[in-house]
């Protein structure tokens, strides 16, 4: 569809007289097509293979991999910082002391209620009658 604006016949004729746009012969067109096809060979072959090499894959994913790497580093750094502030060494002695005192208190309680022979049997059998001390 043409727009409302029409070509100017006088101007068009003058431009046509000055125009030197070459019209290619069929042989020249074929030559140009052959040139394009020759240059396009590698790209077309690459498309037919349908696979990409490891470095093309790496290049394609480089931005994503960089972002993921940076995010992982930040998370790891945060974890390390947290671990240095709240040290397991601060928690471990208190937990061990609490466990040891509970065990000693339990053994003393059981020892006071039964004789030495029964105490050995109770420790080996860990009877629920004893209050589940061996399972606590």
């Amino acid at each position, binding site marked *: *569809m*043409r*727009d409302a*604006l029409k*070509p*100017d016949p*006088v*101007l*068009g004729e*003058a*431009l*046509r*007289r*000055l*125009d*030197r*746009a*070459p*019209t*290619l012969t069929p042989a020249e*067109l074929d030559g*140009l*097509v052959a*040139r*394009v*096809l020759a*240059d*396009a*060979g590698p*790209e*077309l*072959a*690459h*498309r*037919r*293979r*349908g696979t990409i090499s490891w470095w093309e894959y790496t290049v394609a994913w480089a931005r994503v991999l960089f972002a993921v790497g940076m995010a992982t580093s930040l998370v790891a750094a945060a974890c390390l910082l947290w671990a240095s502030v709240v040290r397991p060494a601060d928690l471990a002695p208190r937990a061990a002391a609490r466990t040891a005192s509970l065990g000693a208190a339990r053994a003393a309680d059981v020892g006071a209620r039964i004789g030495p022979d029964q105490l050995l049997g109770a420790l080996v059998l860990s009877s629920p009658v004893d209050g589940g001390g061996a399972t606590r």
Partner: protein
Amino acid sequence: MNQHPHIQPDPFEGDAQVERSLVERVQAGDRSAFGALVERHMARAFRLAYRVLQQREDAEDLVQDAFLSALQHIDAFDARRPFWPWLSRIVVNRGLDLVASRAVRATEPLPDDLFDRGASPADAAERAEILGRVRHELALLPPRRRLVVQLFELDGYSVSEIAELMETSPTTIRWHLHVARRDLRRALSHLNGDED
């Protein structure tokens, strides 16, 4: 006088299905399909490249470069759309970039058949002078504006087609056309019997 076939906007419009199939095959690396696609559009692409660069050898290089670029980016192209507008945009954009980087103007000599052979020597000389002035004005136009007026006046493109080709608005194209026509008509005024 040179004969220039009127360039139809898209002679393959009715072949949309065929072209779509060709593009899809090219996307899969089919050499013969790419050859068929290049053959279809080579003549028009070359003419357009020549319009932009005004040099045959440069136009050949540009059209070759444009087809290869189209191939490299064919995955981004929607095969349901016509191929020519996309290709022509590549040709024009790359061509205008090249012109801008070189900052050259056409300096080819005037054609031998510039004036009618039947005219008297005086008339012929006058016409040659006027056409020389038009040619000078044409060469002075910015490349983009010169391309607009040539596509419209010589190659039969409509304003909207040129706007699509140059990725701008029809209003901008009309403005380019208005200014270019005004300058060229001024140079032509003697030919019409007017005085400056």
